[in-house]
C-alpha cells in the first residue's frame, strides 16, 4: 500500500538512491569498456572516457568471443527446445495421467534440480568419455537436457494442473485419446508455459559454468568459460573483460527487459511454494 504524507517523499527518494547504488556496477562496466587501455587507471575509475568513447573494445571482444557466443547460442537453444518439449509431455502425464507411484516419483524428480552437481560430476565425466560425447557440444546439450528435466517437468505440471479435467473429459467423449488431447487441447493452451519455461531454461543454460568448464574442450566452450578465462588471465586491460561482460550478458538481459513478466514467473515457480 502506498505511503502517505511526508513519508511519500522519503520513500521515493530512498528508492531512487538505492536504484543508483544497484546501477553502479552497470555504470562502471560501460564506462570502463569505452575507455582506451591507456586511460584505465584506478584513480579515474569513476570518470567518463575523456577522449570520447572507444568502441574498439567491443569489436575486439566480439571477434575474440564470436565462436564462444555461437557455442552458447547453439547449446542454449537446442537444450532449451529439447528439455522444454520433454518437460511439457512429462507435465501432461504427471498432471492428467497420474500412475501408481507418481506421487513418489515427482519429489524424486524435483530433488534432481537441487543437487550439487559436484556430487555427480566424476561419473558424468566418465560416462561422457565412454559414450564419446565428452568435450563437444552434443555432450553438453545432453547434460543440460537431462538436468533441465526436473524444473521443466515441475513447471509444466503446475501449469497443466490448472486446465480443468472436465475439458479433457469432453474431448474424450468426442473420441480424442492421449495424443489427440495433447495435440488439440493442451498444446494450443501452452503458449505462456512454453514462454516461461523457455526463458527460464535459456537463461540458466546460457549462464551455466560448472559443466561448461569441466565437460567442454576449448573449441566447444560456451561464453561463460571464455569470459572467465579472459578476465582471470594475467595483466588484463580491463576494457576488454568489461566489453566481454556486456556481450555475454546482452542476450539474457534483453530477454529480461522484453519479457520480464515471464522471467519472474519462472523465478517464483522455482521456489516450489512461491
Amino acid at each position, binding site marked *: 500500500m502506498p505511503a502517505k504524507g511526508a513519508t511519500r517523499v522519503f520513500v521515493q527518494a530512498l528508492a531512487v538512491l538505492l536504484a543508483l547504488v544497484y546501477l553502479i556496477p552497470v555504470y562502471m562496466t560501460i564506462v570502463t569498456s569505452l575507455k582506451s587501455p591507456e586511460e584505465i587507471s584506478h584513480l579515474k575509475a569513476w570518470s567518463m572516457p575523456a577522449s570520447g568513447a572507444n568502441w574498439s573494445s567491443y569489436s575486439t571482444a566480439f571477434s575474440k568471443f564470436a565462436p564462444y557466443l555461437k557455442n552458447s547460442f547453439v547449446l542454449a537453444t537446442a537444450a532449451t527446445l529439447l528439455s522444454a518439449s520433454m518437460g511439457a509431455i512429462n507435465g501432461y502425464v504427471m498432471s492428467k495421467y497420474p500412475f501408481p507411484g507418481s506421487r513418489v516419483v515427482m519429489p524424486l524428480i524435483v530433488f534432481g534440480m537441487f543437487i550439487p552437481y559436484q*556430487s555427480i560430476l566424476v561419473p558424468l565425466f566418465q560416462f561422457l568419455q565412454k559414450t564419446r560425447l565428452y568435450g563437444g557440444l552434443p555432450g553438453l546439450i545432453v547434460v543440460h537436457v537431462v538436468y533441465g528435466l526436473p524444473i521443466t517437468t515441475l513447471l509444466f505440471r503446475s501449469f497443466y494442473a490448472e486446465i480443468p479435467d472436465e475439458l479433457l473429459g469432453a474431448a474424450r467423449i468426442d473420441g480424442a485419446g492421449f495424443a489427440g488431447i495433447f495435440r488439440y487441447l493442451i498444446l494450443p493452451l501452452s503458449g505462456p508455459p512454453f514462454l516461461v519455461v523457455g526463458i527460464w531454461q535459456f537463461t540458466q543454460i546460457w549462464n551455466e559454468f560448472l559443466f561448461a568448464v569441466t565437460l567442454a574442450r576449448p573449441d566447444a566452450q560456451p561464453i561463460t568459460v571464455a569470459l572467465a578465462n579472459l578476465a582471470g588471465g594475467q595483466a588484463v586491460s580491463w576494457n576488454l573483460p568489461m566489453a566481454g561482460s556486456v556481450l555475454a550478458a546482452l542476450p539474457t538481459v534483453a530477454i529480461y527487459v522484453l519479457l520480464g513478466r515471464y522471467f519472474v514467473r519462472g523465478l517464483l515457480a522455482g521456489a516450489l511454494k512461491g
Partner: protein
Amino acid sequence: MHSRRDELIAILVILPSIVLLAIFVYAFIGQSIKASVTDWGQQAALSLNPEIHYVGMQNYKDLFTGFLGMRFRQDLTSMICFTALFVVVALAVGLGLATLIDHLVWGEAVFRTIFLFPMSLSFVVTGTIWRWLLQPRGGINQLPTLVGLPAGQFLWLSSREQRFAFDWAALPHYACWMLAIILAVLAWTNSRRAKPKTAGRQAVGAAALLVLAISGITRRLAILDFPEIHGFNVAIWGVVIAAVWQQSGYTMALYLAGLRTIPEELREAARVDGASRFQIYRYVELPMLTPITVSAVVILGHIALKIFDLIFAMAGPDHAPTSVPAITMFLKTFRGNEFAVGSAIGVVLLVLVSLLIIPYVATSFREGGDQ
C-alpha cells in the same frame, strides 16, 4: 475415466525421462559414493583399466582430520560463513526492498526492474564486474575520493585476515558447548510453556554437557594431533557483496509477491482496531511472510552451499582466502586427477545440501497434496 490404453501410453511416454534421471541423478550419486571410498586417483585415473582399491572411509577421514585436508577444512569454514552471511544479508535487503516498493507512489515497475535485473546475469559476468570494482585500488575503494575523502584501503577479496578463529582439533569441545546452550534455551522456553517434564530433562542434559565441557574432558577428545586454526576469512565479504547484489532482487520478488497476496480486509480490520501503519507491518504483514522466508532460506542456502562460478570469476580457483569446497573439488578432480577425493568432497556437499532440501521438497509435496 482414462482408457487402459491411454494410461499405458502415458507411462511409456514419461518413462525415458524417468530412466534418464534415475541414471544421471541417482545412479551417478551411487557411483560417486562408491568412488569416494577408493584410492582412485593420480596415475591410476588416466589409465584405461585403472587399478583401484577399496579404502573405506579413509578419504573422508583425511578431509576432516588428516594432515593434507587443511585446505578443505578452511574451505568448509568459509562456505559456512559465506552461506550464513549471504542468506541473512540477502533476506534483509530483499525484505527492505520489497517493503520500500510496496510503499512507492510511482515508478514501481521501473524500480522493480532495476533491483531484479542482476538475476538475469550469470555469476561469471557478476563476478567479472565485481572483480574489477573490488580491486584493492578499484572503484569501490575510490568511492570516498569522489566526495573528497581518502580512498578506502579494505582488501575486499585478497585480505588474509581471519576473524573468529577457532581450533579445528577442539571441534567436539565446541560442539559440546553449543549443544549445552541449545538444550538450556530449550529447557527455558519449555519451562515458560509450562512443560516441566521436558524442561527438566533438557535442563539435566544441558547441565551434564556443561560439566563435560568445563571439566575439560571434551578438550581431550581432540580430532587432530595438532592445533589447527581456522576462522572467518575477511576476504569472503567481497563475494558476499557481489552475491547479494545479484540475488537480493530474487528475495525482493518473493516478498513482494507475498505482500500482494495478503488480503486487504486483514489490513482494514487492523486499521479499524486502531493499529498504526507500523503496527500493521509488524503484526499483520511480517508474520504472513514467514513461509516465504522459509522458502527463501532454503533456496538461497542451497545456492550458497554450491557457490562456485562466482568465486571462480571473482578470485580464480587458486585463491585460498576465498576458496570453498566446490572449488577444491574442481581442482582435485580436474587438475589433480584425484577422482576419489573429488568424489568425496562432492558427497559431502550433497549431504549438506540434502539437509536443507529434502525436508523442503518433502513438505512442499505433502502440503500441496497432489498439486
